[in-house]
């Protein structure tokens, strides 16, 4: 299944559900920047890209109030070790 997904990404096949790829790109972008995922930023960037500005806002606020979303990212010390993995990765695909 993964092999088919990779082939589709590499060949730039038209994506039936573009939101899924955009979500994965945001997750990978977060790992590239911090070495870990920063969920609040991933959600916000994803919503902006999908132009769903206010969708799930209530859920996000609820998660924030329960301290389930950190406002600032947790980043690893040697982030450049991880960032350089991303040169030329599928994350940079244009969809």
């Amino acid at each position, binding site marked *: 299944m993964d092999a088919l997904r*990779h082939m589709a990404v590499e060949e730039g096949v038209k994506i039936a559900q573009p939101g899924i790829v955009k979500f994965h790109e945001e997750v990978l972008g977060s790992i590239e920047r911090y070495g870990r995922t920063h*969920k609040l930023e991933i959600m916000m960037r994803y919503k902006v890209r999908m132009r769903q500005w206010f969708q799930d806002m209530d859920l996000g606020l609820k998660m924030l109030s329960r301290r*389930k*979303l*950190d406002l600032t990212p947790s980043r690893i010390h040697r982030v450049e070790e991880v960032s350089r993995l991303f040169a030329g990765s*599928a994350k940079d695909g244009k969809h």
Partner: protein
Amino acid sequence: MGSIDRIDLSYFPGCSLATTAKESNESLMKVCEKLGLNLIELEDWNCCGSSSAHSMDKSLALSLPARNLSLAPSNRPLLVMCPSCLHRLQLAQRVISENPEARLQEETRWGRPIDPGLKIVHFFEVLSGIEPSRLEAALVRPLRG
């Protein structure tokens, strides 16, 4: 409780246990303390890549968890609580142990050896292997009716 030997384990929290599932992390810490399990957080651990890496890019899906494996000391098991992280770490270890070329590539990339025999275990596996006397010593409230 004071007399039981402490057991050292490396610990990989993963992104969810550190944030959205922090209650689970807190529970784990409390239970491990009672059971005498000494969790030593993997120094400078990174995201295992999650579904996004293995859905999008095969090499990220291997190298991200491989970095964590390269950080794990081989003299103690690596404990993982998140089932998804566990799966990604174990799969990477399998690739590395079955493919010498992939192992060499990852060891060169990270500049550290990777022990293909490192035990990577979920908390429940550790729990099921604990001798009854240790469990009994840690018991706070028995469930006898």
